[in-house]
């Protein structure tokens, strides 16, 4: 159970959102929508510990803000930047990300296959299209094992097949009791999704 109570966030002196509250159970999916500038990205960054915020966050009753290290272990944040290096190949990205996270070596062929990247395994980052970069970035969902996924606009630049792969992954993750919080403008064919609409916009 991941609960957020009265969360407020300021950015550059401006109040981006205030007094947001929601709760998410095992296998839950929260779709965050709202206008441009309503603070969807800021919310996800706050939940990942990237942006300072006021309020209470708790994970199965333990206070998140007192132990960010534990929050980093249990969550996986994928922002709207793909973190793809122009000079590394697809395969090397997996190695690099895995070294950064410091977890056991994953099964590479199946990780690549999860987002249909097997054919591109030896291509350098600079020769990938936007959608291919996005898919590479999303392989981190398979590469790491974290119960809480924080996804900022995950479907951007993905084609229909890429989106289908992503939704498969999400369904799979939820079936195992994982939670997903995703910000998106797109309709997502997700079963029993909770919806959080960010109030306001260009305030």
């Amino acid at each position: 159970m991941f609960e957020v109570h009265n969360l407020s966030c300021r950015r550059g002196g401006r109040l981006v959102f205030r007094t947001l509250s929601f709760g998410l159970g095992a296998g839950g999916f929260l779709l965050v929508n709202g206008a441009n500038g309503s603070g969807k990205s800021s919310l996800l960054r706050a939940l990942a510990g990237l942006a300072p915020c006021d309020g209470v966050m708790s994970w199965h009753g333990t206070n998140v803000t007192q132990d960010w290290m534990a929050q980093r272990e249990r969550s996986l944040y994928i922002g709207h930047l793909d973190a793809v290096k122009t000079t590394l190949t697809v395969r090397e990205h997996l190695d690099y990300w895995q070294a950064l996270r410091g977890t056991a070596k994953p099964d590479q062929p199946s990780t690549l296959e999860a987002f249909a990247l097997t054919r591109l395994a030896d291509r350098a980052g600079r020769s990938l299209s936007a959608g291919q970069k996005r898919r590479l970035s999303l392989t981190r969902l398979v590469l790491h094992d974290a119960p809480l996924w924080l996804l900022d606009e995950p479907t951007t630049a993905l084609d229909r097949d890429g989106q289908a792969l992503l939704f498969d992954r999400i369904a799979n993750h939820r079936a195992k009791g994982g939670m997903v919080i995703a910000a998106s403008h797109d309709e997502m064919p997700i079963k029993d999704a909770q919806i959080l609409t960010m109030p306001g916009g260009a305030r």
Partner: protein
Amino acid sequence: MKSFFALLHHEIKLHLRQASDSAALLLFFIIVIVLMPFALGPEPEILRRLAPGLIWLAALLMSLLSLDRLFVQDARDGTLDIWLTTPTPLPLLVLAKILAHSVLILSALTLMMFPAALVLGMDAALLPVLLLSFVLGVPCLVFLGGMAGAITVALQRNPALLTLLLIPFYIPVLIFAVSACDAAAAQTSPASNLLLLGAILALVAPSAPFVIAAALRSGQG
């Protein structure tokens, strides 16, 4: 520990892949050295006497130019977000990146030191002291540069701010390094100056990764 070496390996690979950038840095170093005789006049005596200082000045400018690769690029492409959200301690990631950068700058300088000494007619007996001053001084420059880089990322300012922030901190390193070579040229012991360089390194190396990590975290918001 094993994971630290894996990180180091990846950071070195990332640096090496930017071959054209690295070549540009080496070329910059050589051009600065080659221009010196034109700027100062071709008298061999003057050039020989100034050689260690000129070589160090070129090295310092080269390391300033390369700082864009520390954190600024990572912030731009989103890798920094991964750094900040992994459970791996941030100072450890920072240390791996700085060490990789130092090793590469040092190996480039070790390579270019010989042609530079040749062009300026430097006494070959000074080469070991020069090398030693690089080994102690260059990591200082990179650690300090990393701090400034992290601060510019945090403030989301132009990397040109880097240069302004750094110059005052680079000056002591430059003074002690060049004094060590001058002492050796005057047939006296360079030990005291090298020890002072070592002292700067001993001060900066253990603290910088934590300062950099704190700066990178504070920049998010």
